[in-house]
């Protein structure tokens, strides 16, 4: 098996021919006997913002988490910027550095300041000296409008500010793609806008983004494509207007009518 699989890996599906920044090919994921992802194919082009929506349990977060292998796909391959992240012996730490991830619960390090949160990977993964790391981190914090909060600890920041620091933490590493896992779901409604504004800025600056979220209005404004998932499969996809206004599948229609009203 191994000898056959080896050369084939270099074959037609390999890296160089993949025009997409993110290419998910036939990804399955089992948790025990339960199959969360039942063969998902999804390609995201450079500078594209793709929105994934769907009922809870549809596998959208799992799919996102497979893209930096926080979740191990049971089957299938995923390429990021031409590198197969699902390859045996892939240098995960080097690859992850270029895949920014933002979590629903922010997950800032509570024992470090905002600046410390952003500089940690710059210093320990990229190997920047402290002064340079601080400079890069301050620029990243400036991009999310929080330069003046650099010395604050996460507990001294609002949820929206924490999430923006988390975005800065990812941005500082100059990712090729950003993954957002329900970035605004844990926020009070009045704090959602600031986070979405930062995401819109990133989109306008040409960042490639894959977003799991229920912010339909934001999807309409900013997304290039909306993907509707249900029961571990992509049921339909298209531009936001199309998917929201005229869902083709019954399940998507049912879902839209629930979230819109």
């Amino acid at each position, binding site marked *: 098996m191994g000898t056959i699989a080896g050369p084939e890996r270099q074959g037609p599906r390999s890296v160089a021919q993949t025009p997409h920044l993110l290419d998910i090919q036939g990804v399955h994921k089992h948790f025990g006997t339960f199959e969360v992802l039942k063969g998902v194919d999804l390609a995201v082009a450079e500078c594209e913002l793709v929105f994934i929506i769907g009922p809870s349990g549809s596998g959208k977060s799992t799919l996102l988490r497979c893209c*930096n292998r*926080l979740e191990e796909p049971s089957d299938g391959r995923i390429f990021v910027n031409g590198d197969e992240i699902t390859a045996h012996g892939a240098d995960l*730490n*080097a690859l*992850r*550095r270029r*895949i*920014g*991830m933002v*979590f629903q*619960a922010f*997950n*800032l*390090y*509570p*024992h470090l300041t905002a600046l410390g949160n952003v500089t*940690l*990977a710059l210093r*320990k*993964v990229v190997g920047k000296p402290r002064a340079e790391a601080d400079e890069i981190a301050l620029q990243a914090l400036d991009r999310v409008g929080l330069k003046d909060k650099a010395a604050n*600890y*996460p*507990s*001294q920041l609002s949820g929206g500010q924490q999430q923006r620091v*988390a975005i800065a*933490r*990812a941005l500082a*590493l100059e990712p090729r793609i950003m993954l957002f896992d329900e970035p605004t779901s844990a926020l009070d409604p009045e704090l959602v806008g600031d986070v979405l504004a930062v995401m819109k800025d990133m989109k306008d600056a040409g960042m490639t983004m894959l977003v799991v979220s229920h912010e339909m209005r934001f999807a309409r404004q900013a997304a290039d494509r909306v993907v509707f998932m249900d029961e571990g499969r992509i049921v339909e996809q298209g531009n936001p207007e199309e998917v929201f206004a005229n869902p083709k599948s019954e399940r998507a229609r049912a879902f839209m009518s629930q979230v819109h009203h």
Partner: protein
Amino acid sequence: MSQFDRFLATFFDWEIIRDFLPALGQGFVITCELMVSIVVSGLALGLLLAVARTFRVRAVNAAIVVYVDALRALPPLVLILLAYFGLPNVGIGLSGFTVVWLVLTLVLAAFAEEIFWAGILSVRQGQWEAARSTGLGFLQTLVYVVLPQAVRLTLPPLTNRTIAITKNTALGTVVGVGEILNQATTAQSFVGNASPLMAGAIAYIALFVPVVVLGRWLETRYSWRKA
């Protein structure tokens, strides 16, 4: 002689205490040496074991759990006597000082491992995920993200346990270690008066109160505002 005078003569005979001071000083130094070396090696070994446990190698973890449970269950005195009187029969003759240091290090390490491990487990999974998603490796995440949080959470139980175990240096008296209690009982049997014991008790207070205060200070210093 009034009751009170008898009390003073029994416990606070200044002349006896004065004569006892040089010996007490020696004991104080030995107790200090034992204490510091036990705290350093016991906490270091405990942390090392807790870190080893994070790799979740089944056989290693089972061995750690057996070790920890055994040493938490056994009275330290039993281990000290076993090591001191048993080991020479298999050709390992350790000094009383070494036996007390070794046994209490192992006991403190067992308790410390459990405390550190609980601390590591209490750090949310999201912290690991956030760190790993930025490219930090497993050990880097442990060292820079998880342990700083875990250690802060565990400071209060850790200081309590450390104090409780280092007090057991007094057990050294049964294997001839010249620590505070040994010096005091020797002097007491020589003069037939409890004043050296009282002086020993005061020496323990002088030794441990600063430790208790230091523990308290550490707890406030590092009890950072929770997120």
